[in-house]
């Protein structure tokens, strides 16, 4: 087994605006099972960061526990990272963001990490609209602990050992919309054409961007009868639209006919271009997004693509009206009000 990736790259590898190639965004060689969907999502993150020309040192990756939560080791090797306690990634991400709001935050989690032990944390980070990209690598099982059904396993889905899951699944995308997440998308690890622009758009979204990515566990949940296998997902996938992310384009007024295409302006002037839209679905309307998800569920379809986006809502820093400069860059002179002011404040409480 190889532990190191050879250092040579294709001599004609394209360079981005910073003069970097993909290599500068890679991490170390994955130790996940060969063929694990999580590796593809890592590759999509690498690709998206490369294409967005982000400075690797301006990115922080935070995760919990699980195979999915191990992946930050395998991408963005030149960025900051924190591998936290099971299900506690949102708290650590919130703290980090409070201290330095200028970084791009990638929260990486699994369906176990988010929908079981970390559920309490997930719902609150959604409510707070923390400015981050939250990716659930959703394989319907606890991969790291050998494949037990997770809370996102569909009712009736068959495990590798042959048992049928009797419980209802938590639909993470619906839940996120319900709780007020400002950017919600769903995708599939095996569809980079969709996943890469979604990640890019999520990085540009100012607020909580939730990506529920179906990511087959080849080792424990890729068997016939599983609803999270490569074959099943490919057969049941239904895209809301195809999509392109267009950074830094002159603003064009969103004018579109239903069922055709639309452009959604992001807060920073970038655009999401959606083509071949499903009719009766408006990505900026929560009700239609929830409906679309419910309709798809009724038809046994897995709805992918951008589901809902709201660029108006303030993110946590906006709500708290924090100082424009990140906390970690404030000097003592800015932080300490001085004896007189302090006395005045104290006097106010007497």
């Amino acid at each position: 087994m190889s532990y190191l990736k050879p250092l040579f790259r294709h001599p004609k590898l394209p360079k981005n605006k910073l003069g970097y190639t993909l290599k500068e965004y890679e991490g170390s060689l994955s130790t996940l099972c060969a063929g694990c969907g999580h590796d593809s999502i890592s590759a999509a993150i690498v690709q998206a960061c490369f294409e967005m020309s982000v400075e690797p040192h301006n990115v922080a990756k935070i995760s919990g526990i699980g195979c999915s939560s191990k992946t930050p080791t395998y991408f963005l090797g030149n960025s900051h990272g924190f591998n936290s306690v099971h299900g506690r990634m949102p708290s650590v991400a919130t703290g980090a963001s409070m201290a330095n709001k200028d970084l791009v935050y990638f929260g990486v989690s699994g369906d176990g990490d988010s929908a079981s032990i970390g559920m309490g944390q997930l719902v609150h980070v959604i409510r707070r609209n923390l400015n981050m990209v939250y990716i659930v690598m959703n394989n319907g099982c606890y991969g790291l602990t050998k494949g037990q059904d997770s809370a996102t396993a569909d009712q009736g889905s068959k495990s590798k050992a042959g048992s049928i899951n009797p419980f209802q699944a938590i639909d993470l995308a619906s839940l996120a919309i319900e709780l007020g997440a400002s950017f919600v998308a769903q995708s599939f690890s095996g569809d980079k054409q969709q996943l890469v622009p979604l990640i890019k758009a999520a990085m540009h979204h100012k607020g909580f961007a939730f990506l529920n990515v179906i990511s087959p566990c080849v080792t424990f949940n890729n068997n016939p009868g599983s609803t999270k296998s490569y074959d099943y997902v490919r057969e049941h996938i239904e895209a809301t639209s195809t999509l392109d992310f267009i950074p830094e384009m002159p603003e064009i007024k969103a004018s579109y006919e239903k069922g055709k295409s639309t452009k959604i302006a992001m807060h920073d002037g970038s655009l999401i271009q959606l083509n071949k839209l499903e009719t009766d679905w408006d990505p900026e309307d929560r009700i239609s997004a929830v409906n679309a998800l419910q309709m798809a569920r009724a038809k046994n379809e897995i709805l992918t693509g951008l589901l809902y986006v709201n660029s108006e809502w303030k993110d946590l820093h906006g709500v708290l009206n924090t100082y424009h400069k990140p906390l970690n860059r404030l000097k003592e002179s800015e932080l300490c009000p001085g004896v007189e002011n302090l006395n005045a404040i104290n006097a106010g409480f007497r």
Partner: protein
Amino acid sequence: MKPTNTKNPEYYHKVVDCQYACPAHTPVPEYIRLIAAEKYTEAYMVNWESNVFPGVLGRTCDRPCEPACRRVRVEEEPVAICRLKRVAADNKGDVKTLMPQGPFQPNGKKVALIGGGPASLTVARDLAPLGYEVHLFDEQVAGGGMMRSQIPSFRLPEEVLNEEVNYILDMGIHTQFLTYVKSLKEVLSQKYDAVFVGTGAPKGRDLPKLPGRKEGDKFIHIGIEWLANVAFEHTKSISEKVIVLGGGNTAMDCCRTSRRLGGKEVKVVVRSPFDEMKASPWEKEDALHEDIQIIDNHVPLSFEVENGKLIGMKFQKVKPVYDANGKRQLLPTDEPDVFIEADEVLIAIGQENSFPWIERDLGLEFDQWGMPVVDELTYQSTHPKVFFGGDAAFGPKNVITAVAQGHQAAVSLHLFCEGKDLRERPSPFTNLISQKMGIHEWSYDNGVAIDQRYAVPQAEKTLTLRDRKKEVELGFDVPTAFKETQRCLNCDVQTVFTAERCIECDACMDVCPTSCITFTANDEESELRQKLLVPAENLSQDLLVSNELKTGRVMVKDEDVCLHCGLCAERCPTSAWDMQKFLYSVTKAYQMPAPLPQIQK
């Protein structure tokens, strides 16, 4: 594109860049791995089976494999393929017992080989084990052809040559040395079943019309004749000031030999610009290192003779001018002509074929340039019994080409003697074996070393210039050789793809360090090449295209800069990728039973 037919042995063969570029198609990575494993004897035999003269070639080969080496495309400098060959030869154990052992059961057929150079010797080696009675004629005192008469001992020690020539002659070859064949007619009258002509390109070009040529004749020599005279010790010294005309490897051997026979101010004067000289870069380097001056862009005008003695030469200065197609013309400059002093001149401006001993009424056709008409596949002349190979067939080339042609001519001679169709040639010997040893373990070392090419050490100039027989290159020592072997990318370990097993998880595409693999909708080749992760712009390298996959896409792999690191196969959950070693041994008249012997130590 249609799915690639990997059953065609040429597909995987072409992936092994070095082997494909080698005229004899020596399985390079196979022997490099054996050297790494300290199995020098086996490494030698892999070479011997293919190129017949590993010790000679490990020192003198023109190495067309090296510019082709994949390492050039991913790093810069090729693996030192040639010098590693020498390591096998230098460190080998007993090899003779691994060679075909005579006496061989006679098959009743008799062949004549005219000339004793590498081409003829290869034919002899391939035919003797089949029971042919082989008669070899050469005008020189011993076998080896130009390897003996031309390649100087400081590049190729006589012992090395003798050893490898004798491996063949000891197979029961009937030799007649010091025998110049004066008439092909006479040979043909002697009841040979077939005749092979391997007489080389023995005539050195002269400058007969240059003023002063006749007057200075005593001081002017034809390069290859002079080198032969040195080799056979008829010439033992040269004057202090020497001009060598020409810019090829013969010129390099002439100037370097001159330095050893007393030449102090040795100047190579050449028409073309330095960078465009025919000599290999390493030959030029070695010459410069031996304080030889190379004067480029000078065209000879006259030999200057005073009182019956050569005093030097006059040259015109030229400059290269290139037209839109890059075609070069050498145009005179305004500068005055140049006089260069010299006591002796060696003319090394090329070689020609000459066949004064072949009668023109035998039904053996010659073309307008005086070259025999020879079939490029079968090496048969228009006289069905007479075959050509080596420099005699298509003009001067090099040892490895002579060997390659010898193998093919031997196949033809054998088919001919058996009354078979010469165009229905037996297939090459091929083998494709998985290297999988465990879930993620390979039986080859798949790590990719980033080391740069190691240099071969040389003996001190003060020693080598004193003795023309002192070998300049010392060869790699074992530890350096090992490090150099690790630079080889194992291009013969093929990435074999089985579409039916692929679940399209993208793992291989994601992990591949050099972005070789793309899953995409199929298209015409030119379109497909543009659609890959990194466009496949090196058209000399093939695309491996799979059968259609479940999603309707195809897997396309650009072979161009694949590192053969095996990561695609390691990351593949279904073994749709496998690393399989491809062995390719060119068609030969006598195929050794185990072409690449698995000998135990």
